[in-house]
């Protein structure tokens, strides 16, 4: 039952992948890149011109808003120090290797190469740390190897959960984050598992 479902999914995804490969893919990328490059100029133009037509003193209003920039950045400092120090110590202690040993039999079972496990564990903790691991893996195995593609997908599909939570809550002084970390990590886990799944289908 599950097997046939999986095969059906494989077929459709492969068809889509074939259909969108080549010209379609690069078109999509060009359009999206163009969007990214134009987004900020367009936003700035619309905001400033519309503000002017609404008879807003744009310069004074900008200064008024910008004043808060300093205090927001300062507010974040204690939160970011707390979380980055803990993560930095964790990385330096070598505890990561210990967790990898415990978890690797489990990840082998779901078809996730043991080499990519450090990416999965490091991604929610540190952006630069996980990017370093991804780069190392791609240097060793090649960017177009299965490991390289899976590691890239993992990196591209989740965020540095702990950093985001520290900065976002820190900026407004929230100390009790309630279920934010749990839901963020559940999301990360889903993202990583789905990365393994989709990479097996598309690149497998």
């Amino acid at each position: 039952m599950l097997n046939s479902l999986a095969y059906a999914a494989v077929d459709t995804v492969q068809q889509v992948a074939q259909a969108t490969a080549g010209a379609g893919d690069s078109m999509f990328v060009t359009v999206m890149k163009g969007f990214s490059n134009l987004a900020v100029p367009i936003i700035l133009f619309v905001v400033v011109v519309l503000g002017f037509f609404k008879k807003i003193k744009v310069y004074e209003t900008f200064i008024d808003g910008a004043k808060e920039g300093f205090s927001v950045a300062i507010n974040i400092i204690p939160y970011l120090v707390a979380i980055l120090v803990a993560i930095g110590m964790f990385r330096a202690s070598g505890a990561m290797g210990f967790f990898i040993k415990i978890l690797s039999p489990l990840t082998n079972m779901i078809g996730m190469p043991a080499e990519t496990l450090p990416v999965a564990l490091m991604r929610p903790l540190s952006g630069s740390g996980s990017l370093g691991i991804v780069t190392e893996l791609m240097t060793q195995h090649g960017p177009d190897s299965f490991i390289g593609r899976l590691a890239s997908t993992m990196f591209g599909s989740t965020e540095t959960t702990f950093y985001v939570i520290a900065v976002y809550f820190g900026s407004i002084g929230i100390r009790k984050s309630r279920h934010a970390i749990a839901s963020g990590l559940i999301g990360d886990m889903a993202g990583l598992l789905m990365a393994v799944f989709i990479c097996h289908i598309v690149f497998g």
Partner: protein
Amino acid sequence: MNYIWLALMVISLVVGAFTGNLGAVTAAAVNSAEVAVEISLGLIGIMAFWLGIMKIAEEGGIIKILSRAIRPISKFLFPEIPPDHPAIGTMLMNIIANWLGLGNAATPLGLKAMKELQKLNKSEDTATNAMVVFLALNTASITFIPMTVIAVRAKLGSANPFEIISTAVFASTCATITAVTAAKLMQRLPGTRKSDPNRLPKTTGKGGDDA
């Protein structure tokens, strides 16, 4: 957060002692503290810039227009926020910046949104349900151009550095849906319900309106 932080500290110190890495652990602590301050201070300029632009957008009514435009979605995701509250429009701008991979703009816009959400919070130091859902959207953020990793792939001589976009978008969409669902489900647990700073004092007041 308390337990996670404690666990990270204790594990690093204990493992560091066993593996003889204690020196490296303390060095990392000092180093990371400096990096944290650098990152925070580095935000000042870009923060001030986007907060200034957002103030004009707010007074010019753009944020209100955006808020109204996504009313059906925001009513489902953030039932407790009034539909034309500036928080909605600001969150939308943050999410669009994330989609486009505009990391520089996304953080200031996200922090501005948090500020708006805090105005609806009855507590000073406890997160509301809306904040947790917004963070769930952010921590698993969908990016259509994950530029950093594409750049690394290109540098290492990949035949098609962009080929991971479709798989990453697929995985991050699943991650986002899961994170938001988890946040929505967890806010119904007795413990989280009790800690909700905006919970109504007597009746629960919850019909099926948020299902």
